[in-house]
């Protein structure tokens, strides 16, 4: 599939200038077509064919995420995303204040493109599963208005941030609850954590996005991210279709699950939390 790059245009902030540079270099590296966000906004028909024939690389300058918001308004497949302000924080080197690219900005653009190309070229085949998880069979149901939220009764534990965990042989599989996927509605993107990242309980495990909201995944356990679900990267709608099964997000090699368990809820207790949250909405 061809690629197209939808980026922040970078006229009023240094982060934008870097985003623009990343877009140009990413287009060169992937032989992709650059979509002008201004023209897209003004005359979307211009890019209709490009968008239907391509997977998108979306590059935001800052957390206003103009490029992401434009992408959400399209019927487009988003393959990768990058954000300059996050990359600045991760690099530890502040950007120069000039709107023209300076050495730090150029170096950042270079490293962001290298990272992007590396992730696009990464082999699609995942590492071997460390444990075999079977789909849940028994559920509790919490009903609110016309909605029904399902919660597995056995083997699953939850945090109050609507993230589930299931443990087998020292490996935890993590995903979001049926309640949260229904609140988010159609999920269009999963921004995963890097494999090999160490995470604390209640630390961040990336995020999922829908047109309605961005949901930060709060880790129910502490450990090391060993695998990201490739099927969900390819098709984020799996999270909506099967949140406790094929829509799992990451696997984590545990460091101290006994300790983590002190701050986890069983299905019945989480059902009470869902009841309360649904009533408060």
């Amino acid at each position, binding site marked *: 599939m061809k690629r197209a790059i939808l980026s922040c245009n970078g006229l009023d902030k240094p982060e934008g200038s870097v985003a623009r540079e990343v877009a140009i270099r990413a287009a060169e590296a992937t032989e992709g077509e650059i979509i002008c966000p201004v023209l897209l906004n003004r005359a979307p028909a211009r890019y209709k064919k490009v968008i239907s024939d391509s997977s998108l690389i979306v590059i935001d300058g*800052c957390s206003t*995420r103009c490029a992401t918001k434009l992408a959400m308004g399209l019927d487009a497949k988003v393959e990768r995303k990058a954000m300059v302000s996050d990359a600045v924080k991760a690099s530890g080197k502040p950007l120069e204040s000039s709107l023209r690219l300076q050495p730090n900005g150029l170096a950042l653009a270079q490293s962001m493109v290298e990272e992007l190309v590396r992730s696009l070229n990464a082999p699609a085949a995942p590492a071997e599963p460390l444990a075999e998880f079977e789909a849940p069979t028994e559920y509790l149901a919490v009903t609110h208005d016309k909605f029904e939220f399902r919660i597995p009764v056995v083997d699953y534990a939850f945090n*109050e941030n609507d993230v589930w965990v299931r443990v087998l042989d020292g490996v935890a599989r993590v995903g979001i609850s049926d309640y949260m996927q229904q609140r988010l509605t159609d999920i269009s993107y999963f921004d995963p954590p890097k494999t090999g990242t160490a995470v604390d*309980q209640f630390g961040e495990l990336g995020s999922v996005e829908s047109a309605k909201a961005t949901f*930060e995944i*709060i880790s129910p356990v502490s450990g090391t991210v060993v695998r990201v679900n490739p099927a969900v990267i390819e098709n984020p709608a799996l999270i909506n279709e099967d949140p406790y099964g094929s829509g799992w997000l990451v696997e984590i090699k545990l460091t101290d699950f006994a300790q983590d368990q002190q*701050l986890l809820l069983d299905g019945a207790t989480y059902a009470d939390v869902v009841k309360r949250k649904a009533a408060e909405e």
Partner: protein
Amino acid sequence: MADTTFMGVPREKIPWFPTIDYDKCTFCMECDAFCPHRVFERRENGTRLVVANPTNCVVFCRACAKTCGPDALSFPNKPEIIALIKQVRERESAK
């Protein structure tokens, strides 16, 4: 909302909520438009913004900060809050 808890700890005992850096905030209201929990409130005919309902904030959620272009929202140190939650829970279970 006064009777809500997080991990069994009364919500008002957990100081987790955003702080607005008014030197950075441009009052674009993206955070307020995003947050479904009415943590923020607009004042002065919608030209100013305050954290009006801090205990409505979902503990450990920082999603509003991710909507903030000028990076004007900050949250407390997470490990310190976790330690505090554990401390209160231990105290409660010892009673």
